[in-house]
Each structure stands twice: as C-alpha cells, then as structure tokens.
C-alpha cells in the first residue's frame, strides 16, 4: 500500500519543497520524528558516507555527474541533468532509489558489485525518503550516536571493543554477531566421555538435515586413506593384508593401532611438515630479480619436520618461530651471567647450545618470504619486509589477513589500522641476517663434501674465464697507456678519471668478450656465494634500531648505533610519507587477550628493542588465544578431510568461510590446550571419529548432493586427489626406488630436461642450469627435500598444484587439466618410474599373471578382478609384440650446454658455454633403452596404473 502524502506525488520546485518539508516535520508524531532521526543517523548517513561521498563530494575537483551528496541541500540540488535525485516524501520518484536498485543500466549505484546496497539498506532509504527525508543537525546526530555507543548489542549487531579506529564511526560500528565467531572465546562444549565427541556433533547436524551418515568404509579404503593422510605414502601390500586381518579380529583396536603406528612413523613429519611449509612459503631462494639462494634454509625445513615428528607442543612451536632468537639471546646471556665479551664471542662464532641453535633455526620462518630489494630505497625496503612479515604472521598463526587493515581500519573485521601498526612496531626492530650457528648433531651432513667439490668446480670454471677476459682487457689497457707514453693505472684506480685520460671501458674486448665477461662475473659471484651453503649459518633475524642496508645479496648482523631509536606511527593510507599518530608495539585488541598486566593498555607490549617479539609470541601462544588454537586445529582437520571446518584457514574474519561445525572446532581447540598443545592426540581424536572412517557411498546420494553439494554435513568421506608430492613420492615408494634418508642439503631430483636446461633470466645474466643429483639414491628422496627455487618450479610438481611460494597457500587447487595428462603419460620422469616398477615386478616374479596381480597390489593396494586380469593380459601380450618392433633411443645427458644471450651494450647475440659436470659421472635411472621389450610392455601397464583414477585419488 502506498502511504505517501499525496502532495509529494507531484513534481515540485525546490523552494516549495523545502517549505513543505519544514511544515511536514513538526506535525509528525514525536516518536516518529525521533525514529527518523535515528534512522538517518544510524542507517542512512553511514551508507552515504561509506558508499556515496567518495565520488560525490569528498574530492571537490572530481565530482561524478555533478552530484554532491554531503548535505540534504546538495542532494536536492541534484546532478547534471537530474533534479529528481531525491524527492522527499516520494521514494519511487527519487532517482537515488532507482540507481540503488540498479534499475537503470546507465546509473547503477554504487557501481561496484561488492558495494551494492542490501535490500534492507534500500528499504531504509525508501522509508526515510517517504517520511520526508529528514536530515537532523550534526549535534542531533552525534547525540544519537553517542547514546547508541552504550548499547553493546542491538538489532544492527554488536559493538566490538578494540583499541579504536581512525574515527568513532568505525570504533562504534556494529557487527553481525555470527560473523564475529572467531573473535569470541573458545567455548568448550559439554561432551560425554564415553564416545568420541566428534561423532555427536557431526551426527547432530546430519540428523537435523534428515540424513543418515554413510557406513564405515572397508578396511582397504581406510588403511589407504590413513597412510596417505599421515605419511603421504601408500601402504605396502603387507601392511594392507596385516591390517585387513587385524580388522577382522578387532576392528576398533586394529584401527587405533594403525593410527598410532602411522603417527610414530618419521614419514608423518615429512608429510605434515609440508602442509606447514605451504603456509610458511618455504623456498630455498629469495625470488624476484636475482633469486638469490637462501643458504641453509633447509635447516628451517628440517626443524619443522622434527617438530611434527617429536610432537613439539604447538605453543612452543609458535614462540620459537616468532622469537627464537630472543629466546636464544636470553639463554646465552643467562648462562654467561651477562659477560658482554663472552656473549659477543658466542654470537660471532655461533657456538650456541643445541637448544639455542634449535631456537635460532626456527626463526627461519621470519625469513621465508620472497625478498630482494635491489634498487629499492632503504625505508621502502624496510616497509616491504615488515608488511610482508606482519601479513605472514597474521595468516599463519592467527588466521588473519593483515593486509586488509594496513591502509585503513578493516572494512569488515574489528581490526583497527592502529593494531596493524602495533604489530608492525612489534617487528620494527627485526633485522634480517644470515647468522652463524653450528650444525646440530641431528642435522644431516650428507653430501656436504661432494657438494663443496661441485661448487668449487663450477666456481673455478667461471673465475678462470673471468680472469682470462680481464687479463685480455688489462693487456690492451696497458698498451693504450704505453702508446700515449702514460703510466699504467689499474682498472680500479682509473674508474673516477675523465674519459679522455683513460682507455675505453671495453678496450681489448669485442662484444662477444664483453657479453661473456659479464656472464662469468655473475657466475663467479653466484658460485662463490654458494660456498656459504657449507658454512654453519641460519637464515635468521636480530634486533636493532639501526638500519644499514638490507641488500639480499649478503645479510649479516650489523653494528648497532646506540643512538638510533625506533619510532612508529600509523601510516595513513599505508604511505611512508604520511605518518599519523605514534603507536607502541602491541597485539590485536579485538581478541580481548591482554598481552601484559602492566601499564594502562593491556594490548601494548614492551617498548624495549628486545622482547617485543617474545611478548607478542607469548600472546599468540596464550592458551586463551582463540585465533591461535582454532587456526591450528582447523588446519589439521583440513588435511584429514580435504576441507577445513572454517573455510578460509588464513582468514577467519567476517568474510572468510564460516565454520561448518563450530562445536567441533571449539572442542578440538580446547582439547589441544588441555592436552598440552600436542598435535598427535588431535590427529588421533579426528581419525578415530566415525566421520573420518566413513565411506564415500551413500544410499541417498542424489538428494544429498542436491541439499549439500559441498559435503558440509560430512555425510560421506569425500575423495581427494593426491598432492604433487604424494604423486611423486608415492610412485617412488611403489617402484621401490624411494630413499627415506631424512633432511640435510636440498636434493636435486631429475626434472623435465627441457626445463632443467632452459635459460632463466636473472638480473644481468642467466641462472645456472638445474643439475640433478648424481645417483638415484641421492635423487629419489622425498619431494620435501627437493631444492625449491622460486624462479623455477619442478614442472611436474607445479602441474599438480604445488603452490607458488610467493604467497601463503591455505588450500591447494586440484583441478584436472590436460598438461597433467601429458606429464603422466609422456614425461621421462614418469616413464622412468614405470620402467623401475616393471623391473621390480619382474624381479619378484617371472610369471605374467603374478606380475599383473602384484602391480595392482603395489599401486592400488588390491588384487585385480578377473576381468582386469584378462584385459591386462591381452594388453601385455600386444605390447610385447609392439615393443619388439619399436626400439627406444638411448638417452644421453649433455655434459655442457651452449647458451645464447643478447649483449646489452651492442644488442648483438653472443654465445657461451655452461658446463654440467654432474653428467660426467652420472648414474641414470634405468631407461627404456636399457630394458627388454617384455619389460617395456610391463612398464606400459605400470604407466596405465599410475594414470588411473584409482591411484590418483584417495578415497
């Protein structure tokens, strides 16, 4: 029904309208006027300010459509060609409403899909306009706002207490209570002790939706699921048959025993360490223009693997990664009773205790981002690092994407920009350095000697050639001086001289020489620096208020100027050039977890240079910290079910996915703390639940998919594709090639040779080629130990969605694309696996049928059925005939490679040679040309199995 006053149905002139307005309002009932004032102040004005003023008034030089919206008069005045923007009393006639509803394709306001007004907001505008579009005075507005600030919860939501936004409007804004779930304290749910509590929570939701849970999966499915999940490897046929036998005897006990056995396997840490490294962005190089190696980064990788295997309590794991250096400092200082010289000596030589070293290594986390600040001025380089580390810490430990409130208060979450800069200040004294720290007895020194020899060889090759070219150049320079009867001045000393009193820079060199010299110089530098691989150092940090350059080329602890101090400000709009209010180091206030008991503000930590990060770390590791505990149990759940409980493990904010099972999340979060922050009991609890053991089939499948397409109810167990590393490691395990040696220097697997040898640009030159490790034992280790180069991914792993380490990966993609088929069908790497698999089968039996049976058992965990045996027998026989006819070519590895580059100065191409000494003495994997036609035929079958759905997916 239309209740508008009829007088306003007609177009009226502005003056008349204003007159009409002033007469309408006093006659309205008092409480209605009050309501409209409130409506305007609390509902209308905030929308105008947030969504309209930006283009319609804030920038007087840039007004869209000539329409200003700052005041009622402005709006009534209208825009270019519009005087009906707002018709008080008649929402339908008001063009503002048309625009808000996106009814006129030329005027859809606000123009961005994400900014569109909700139907409720539009309805508020209609109510307000129909009631006469009253715009109360500013005093009246602030009176209403102030009063409302004392109402913590109303129909618009709740006010969240924080350290405060840039303005009151933000500070006292309201949040949808449900969207604030992650900021609420963990509520330990009531649970019965008899049964696994997870069952109850899952069943409750299923029951409400009218579905029964799927039945328990069969024993084979479950042992494969558990083995892949916990170790990243398939079970052996013996493990399968043992388990099936035990399961028949006592299913519950057999399952519990299996889970325990797998959790104790060292392979567990390798698998779960990888999940952590995805989030932490592990890489052995720094990426960007130079892609410098981060020598000894592997020590952090191994620390993570050890931590998982030893079940290091998660709170310690957190603190060590955030503040391990500060913990080590304190420890050194204590045991040496503050003797400054002795302390300095320890730091210089890296002679820490094992515990201290472990702590130092852990801080590698703070060094994991892509980093290279060539050509960036120092203050900006600092900012780039700090923004990166703050965001990484937020995502990793607190499930909070920090970037969102760097330039302004958070749009959706109770995270003021002040808190961003408090965290920023917490890290402001953190300086990057490669620091000396002796190797631990636990750290694997394998390959150090051979590695050193290889690096020396590569270095000598480059430096010899560099010296020869420089010699040629200097000889010509000498001649130049001589010809002029001048005294020879060496290259360094003549740099500053004028052009006419010294020989031309390129004297004695043609463009080929010049190009080569540049390449050799770069190689000389690269290989010389790579010798640091063999020095006991850690990628770590230290505290200092002095900034003395942070070129990623070489990062060392630098002297501290005691007069330097740190001052931190909010940076308006994130700009270094716009410092706002000063801030102290601190934590996120919205959680309500104090960081200290001293001082007025509980969310501020020490202002001393040392101890900021430790105080922050303790706050993160506080058992009450709801983001910390929920975040880690959410990640564990995610990797057991292929999906997390809360949809965005790096972002628990209002716009992240809400938890499908909040009670499970809180139950696990509180169990974690109750269990001394150990993760293995959490795995156990999850895996012993019925939900984890469910089958994928369901009697009401169609209806289930319709109602719950994403399996949010967990009625069934959803299949997942093997990860990139599982595929590679799993194949190696099945063929018997996997070497389970743990840790140490990164290994170089064989990768697609075209990629291994393809030129890769770095600043000034080409990066050295990928040379695989010399022997199969060295190469065929688990993928987590493979050299991770930001500028050059292993194409196999990349195709199967190994994440780009430039960004924290909360969940991996697993889409099927055709290049994956090319790789699994045609690549050398997978072909080699199929040959190795065939050789293993032939080694175990010479009968075709048992070879087929064994192939299925090893790859898929089961025997083939009769149909499969028959079909595969035919296939094998055909392929034996085929391979008699087609001989493979032997594989040759190049011992050197000719590179071509464009010489920068002349723009002409030149060539140079790069050596690949590893292939001098290389032990290749067995190739097709090394084996018989029978073996090749059997390898075809193995290849088919590696390509099969059944191998590639875990059920």
């Amino acid at each position, binding site marked *: 029904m239309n209740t508008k006053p009829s007088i306003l149905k007609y177009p009226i002139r502005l003056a008349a309208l204003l007159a009409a307005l002033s007469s309408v309002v006093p006659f309205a009932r008092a409480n209605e006027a009050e309501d409209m004032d409130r409506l305007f102040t609390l509902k209308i004005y905030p929308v105008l300010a947030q969504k309209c003023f930006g283009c319609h008034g804030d920038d007087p030089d840039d007004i869209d459509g000539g329409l200003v919206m700052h005041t009622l008069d402005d709006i009534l005045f209208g825009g270019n060609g519009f005087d009906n923007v707002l018709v008080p009393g008649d929402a339908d006639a008001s063009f503002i409403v048309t625009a808000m509803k996106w009814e006129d394709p030329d005027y859809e306001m606000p123009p961005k899909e994400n900014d569109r007004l909700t139907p409720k907001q539009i309805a508020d505008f209609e109510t307000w306009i129909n009631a006469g579009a009253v715009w109360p005075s500013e005093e009246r507005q602030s009176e209403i706002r102030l009063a409302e600030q004392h109402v913590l919860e109303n129909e618009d939501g709740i006010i969240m207490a924080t350290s405060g936004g840039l303005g009151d409007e933000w500070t006292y804004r309201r949040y949808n209570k449900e969207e604030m779930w992650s900021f609420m304290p963990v509520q330990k749910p009531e649970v019965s002790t008899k049964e696994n509590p997870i069952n109850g929570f899952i069943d409750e939701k299923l029951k409400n939706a009218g579905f029964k849970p799927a039945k328990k999966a069969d024993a084979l499915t479950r042992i494969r699921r558990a083995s892949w999940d916990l170790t990243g490897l398939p079970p052996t046929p013996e493990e399968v048959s043992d388990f099936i036998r035990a399961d028949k005897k006592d299913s519950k006990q057999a399952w519990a025993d299996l889970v325990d056995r797998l959790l104790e396997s060292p392979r567990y840490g390798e698998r779960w360490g990888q999940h952590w490294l995805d989030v932490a962005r592990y890489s052995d190089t720094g990426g960007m223009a130079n892609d410098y190696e981060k020598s000894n980064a592997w020590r952090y990788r191994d620390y993570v693997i050890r931590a998982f295997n030893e079940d290091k309590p998660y709170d310690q794991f957190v603190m060590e990664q955030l503040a391990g250096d500060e913990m080590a400092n304190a420890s050194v200082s204590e045991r040496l009773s503050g003797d400054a010289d002795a302390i300095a000596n320890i730091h210089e030589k890296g002679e820490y205790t094992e515990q201290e070293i472990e702590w130092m290594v852990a801080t590698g986390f703070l060094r994991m981002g892509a980093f290279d600040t060539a050509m960036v001025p120092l203050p900006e380089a600092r900012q780039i690092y700090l923004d990166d580390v703050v965001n990484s810490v937020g995502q990793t430990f607190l499930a909070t994407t920090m970037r969102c409130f760097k330039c302004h208060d958070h749009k959706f979450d109770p995270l003021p920009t002040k808190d961003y800069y408090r965290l920023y200040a917490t890290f402001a004294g953190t300086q990057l350095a490669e620091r000396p720290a002796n190797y631990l007895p636990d750290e694997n020194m394998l390959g150090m000697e051979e590695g050193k020899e290889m690096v020396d060889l590569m270095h000598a090759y480059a430096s010899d050639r560099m010296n020869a070219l420089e010699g040629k150049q200097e000889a010509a320079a000498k001649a130049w001086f001589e010809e002029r009867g001048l005294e020879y001045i060496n290259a360094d000393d003549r740099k500053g001289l004028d052009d006419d009193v010294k020989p031309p820079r390129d004297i004695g060199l043609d463009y080929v020489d010049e190009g080569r010299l540049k390449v050799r110089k770069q190689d000389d530098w690269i290989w010389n620096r790579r010798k640091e691989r063999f020095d006991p150092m850690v990628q770590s940090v230290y505290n200092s208020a002095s900034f003395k350059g942070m070129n990623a080329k070489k990062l060392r602890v630098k002297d501290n100027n005691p007069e330097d101090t740190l001052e931190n400000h909010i940076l308006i709009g994130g700009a270094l050039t716009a410092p706002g209010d000063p801030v102290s180091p601190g934590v996120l206030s919205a959680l309500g977890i104090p960081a200290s008991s001293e001082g007025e503000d509980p969310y501020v930590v020490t202002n001393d240079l040392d101890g900021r990060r430790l105080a922050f770390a303790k706050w993160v590791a506080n058992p009450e910290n709801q983001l910390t505990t929920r975040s880690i149990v959410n990640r564990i759940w995610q990797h057991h079910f292929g999906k997390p409980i809360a949809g965005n493990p790096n972002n628990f904010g209002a716009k992240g996915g809400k938890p499908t099972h909040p009670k499970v999340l809180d139950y696990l979060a509180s169990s974690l703390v109750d269990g001394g922050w150990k993760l293995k009991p959490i795995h156990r609890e999850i895996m012993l639940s019925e939900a984890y053991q469910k089958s994928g089939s369901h009697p009401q499948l169609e209806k289930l998919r319709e109602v719950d397409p994403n399996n949010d109810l967990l009625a069934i167990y959803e299949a997942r594709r093997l990860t990139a590393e599982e595929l590679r490691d799993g194949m190696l395990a099945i063929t018997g090639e996997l070497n389970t040696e743990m840790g140490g220097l990164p290994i170089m697997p064989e990768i697609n040779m075209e990629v291994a040898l393809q030129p890769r640009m770095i600043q000034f030159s080409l990066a050295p080629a990928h040379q695989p490790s010399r022997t199969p034992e060295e190469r065929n280790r688990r993928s987590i130990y493979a050299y991770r180069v930001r500028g050059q991914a292993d194409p196999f792993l990349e195709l199967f969605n190994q994440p780009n380490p430039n960004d924290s990966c909360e969940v991996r993609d697993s889409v099927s694309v055709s290049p994956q088929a090319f790789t699994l069908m045609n690549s050398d790497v997978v072909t080699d696996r199929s040959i190795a698999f065939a050789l293993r089968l032939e080694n175990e039996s010479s009968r075709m049928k048992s070879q087929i049976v064994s192939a299925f058992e090893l790859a898929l965990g089961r025997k083939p059925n009769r149909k*499969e045996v028959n079909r595969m027998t035919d296939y094998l026989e055909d392929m034996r005939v085929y391979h008699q006819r087609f001989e493979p070519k032997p594989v040759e590895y190049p011992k050197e490679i000719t590179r071509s580059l*464009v010489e920068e100065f002349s723009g002409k191409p030149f060539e140079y040679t790069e050596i690949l000494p590893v292939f001098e003495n290389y032990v290749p994997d067995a190739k097709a040309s090394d084996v018989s036609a029978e073996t090749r035929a059997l390898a075809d079958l193995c290849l088919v199995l590696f390509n099969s759905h059944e191998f590639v997916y875990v059920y």
Partner: protein
Amino acid sequence: MKHDLCSRPFSTPISRRNFLCGLGASLGSVAMTDMFAADGVNVPKLGPLAPRDPMIPAKAKRVIMLFMEGAPGHMDTFDPKPELQRLHKSESTIAKEGDPFKFFVGSPFGSRKVGQSGIDMCDQWKHMADPEVADELCNYRGCQAESVNHPEALYHMNTGSRLGSDPALGAWTTYGLGSVNQNLPGYVVMTELAMPQGGAGNWSNGFLPAHYQGTRLRPEGSPILDLKSQSNKVRGHQRRTIDELAFLNEMHADKHPEHAALDARMESYELAYRMQMEVPEVMDLSREPQHIRELYGMEDKETEVFGRQCLMARRLVEQGVRFVQIFSGGWDSHDYLEEGHSSRIRSVDKGMAGLIKDLKQRGMLEDTLVIWTGEFGRTPDNNKRGGVYSLGRDHNANAMTMLLAGAGVKKGSIVGATDELGMSAVDVVHPIRDLHVTLLHLLGLDDNKLTYFHGGRYKQMSQFGGRVIPELLS
C-alpha cells in the same frame, strides 16, 4: 579377446553423468557441443572455457599483447624530446638530492611524424611508419607504473599486482569470456627461449581456477611440455594406452558415483590426445604462403623470431584463442642505447607492422585488440658507469609509452603527454589499473563485475576499482 593396437575395443561413449556439474576438464576444457552433437544429445554449453557473452557491448573479441620486456625508452621510440637532445651530456637538473652525478642523455635517434595522423616515431621504425599501419595506432603517453624493478613492474602490468601471485589480464579475460576453440588453450603465451623476469607469474591464473592459466608455447623443443609421446611410442600406442586407462577408469567410476570429478579427468586425457594433433598443426607455419611469411619478416634472420611469433599469434586468434601474449626482451638499455634500441626496434618493427596489416586485410583488426607496451619507461638522465658517460637510461615508473591498435581504439591519435624531458606523465595521467579497466571495457567486461570470491573477499583485476580512460576509445 585380442585387440588391434589402434582399435578402441572397449571404448564406451564417455559417460556424461557428471558434466552437468560444470567441472569441465582441462586447459582447453571439453568440446562438449561437438562431443554431444555426435551422440545427438543437446546439452547446453558448459565448462570453464566455454565461450560466454560479454557483460557490456564489446568492441574487441580477442587480444594480442606484445610485451617489450626490459622497458623501451619512450623518448627513443614514440615520444621524442628535442629539449633532451639539446641538453645531451649536460648535468641532470632533475636528479634527487644525494644521487650520484647524473647527466642528460639525448635520444640517439631522429624523429618524424608519420601517416596522415602524424604520430611521432623515431627514425628507426621503418615498417611501422607505413601510413597504412601508423594511422591505425593510438600512442598513449599518460600511463604510470609504480615499481622500478623489472619483475614487480612486469607483474603489475600483467596481473595488476606487484606481488606476482594474482591472475593475469589474459586469465581474467578468459575467465570472463571463455574461449572459442576448445581444443586449444584460451590464453597462450610466447616468450623467447629465456623466460621473462618474474617467470610464469606473469601469466598466472592466480586465485582463479587453473583453466585460466596462460599456456606457454615454448619456442624450442616441445611447445607444451611432454606434448609428444616417448620416441618409441607411436600415435596408435598412445590411443591404446588411453583405451586401457579408460577401461580401468570406467569400472572405477561406476563404483564411485559420488565422485563427480572423474569424468572430467578422463576427458582431459581425450583432450590431451586431440591437442597432440591440433597444437603442432597450428604451429606449423610452413602452411603460410610466401608473401605472408615475408610480410612478417620471417625471411630475415634479424626479424624472424618475433615475426614468427606474430604470425603464430594471428594463427592462434584465427583458430579461436582468446588472448595471446608475446614477450620480447632486451630493452633494458642502461648503456649503449643506440645499438641496443636500434637492434630491438629492428627485430620487432616488421613483425608488428606485418601483424597489423595482416589482421586488417583479413578484416580481423576491427575486433582484435593489439597492445604494444613495456613494464615502465626510462629516465631522461643516467649515471656514469665505471666512471664513463654511459649513454643509456635508468628505469622510470612515472612515464612510459605504449601503442594500442584495433578494436574500439581511437586510431591515429596521440593520447596524453609527458613533460618536455620525459621524466613524468603530465596529461591524461592514469595508473596501470585504469589501463586494465579500459582494456577489459573494450572486451565487454566490467572490472567491477568481473569478480572472483577468494580469501574472504571479491577480487577484481584492478584490485580496488579503477576508471575507464575515455580518451583512448573511438
């Protein structure tokens, strides 16, 4: 039962049970219309790369982007600065405090106005200066980058973000419009043998599904890694392998009706099999007549590499590929600007001019957008290097130059301006995001609506929204 090698004994028609879930396979996704047409089933076009209508009326249907990696100097290509010539080798007056000694570098090249429209070109451009080409061009001088580092700036120009993990323009385009040919990738990238700085991050799908990733056709060896079978396995062998795989997979899929991704995965193998034929065909330039090969400069060693890529780009868009990008490096002339830039210009001049002429004569320029750009511009001044007056230029994020041609572009025009030394853009100044919004606009895509929900918010190419640059539009 015995089978011939090349027969398809058990090949059942691919079950279509799950295609309706929209989980199309692969790179080229599934040629579903064809596939089902053969079966007489009428199924709506689906799949992530199925062609989609633009959101708003579109001028451009496809894009060819020529990326000059290393950053061409604007004053040495299309934006002459006579004042700089005058100041050649004199001390720089624009150096910042604390900078080492810097001096101005005049362009080593002369300049002239070409075509009826009078676009400026340095005298090194011969083929581009042909009025037939020149009058098709729009030279834009107002764009500003942010980073002065190559990889970050490359990422920025290609993905809208300096971080290198967001979707590229080509990924957003194929996400928005799909692609016409389902047997080829929708977004193809060609580089030199060496990857550009920043590598594959420049054509990444970022947070968009992997279907929208740029597929790099490698310049040597296998155009797509492992496209070819092992040398001892003939095509019939490949067919047989896929058939055996299909046999196992179908039995498996029957047991797992709950698993929707299986059919799409099997179809990705069939598509791979088709691509093994189609990709080499489209790459086989020997089918092009001699005059066309000459038009692109394929008969001359200096212009052959880039010419080949330009010709390939035309073949690809002709075959229905949506977005083609060519990276051509070597523009980073910190020194020996004359030699460096003249050789770079010679290497791209003929191929690019040939491409525009060829598109035009085929009537394709009307709805093909051609872009020529670097990641930023260069400075009017330079440092001494090793104590020598090195005649080159440093990186400059404040000014650059680019060419646009074809669909919906204001041809024969110069838009925007840089100051008289070329240090900074001063007219019609826009950040890169506005350029992206404009290019999407030409393709019929509204940046504000072309969004993808990721990490808790709707993301868009321009990051925070941008505006169309109306001066560039016809």
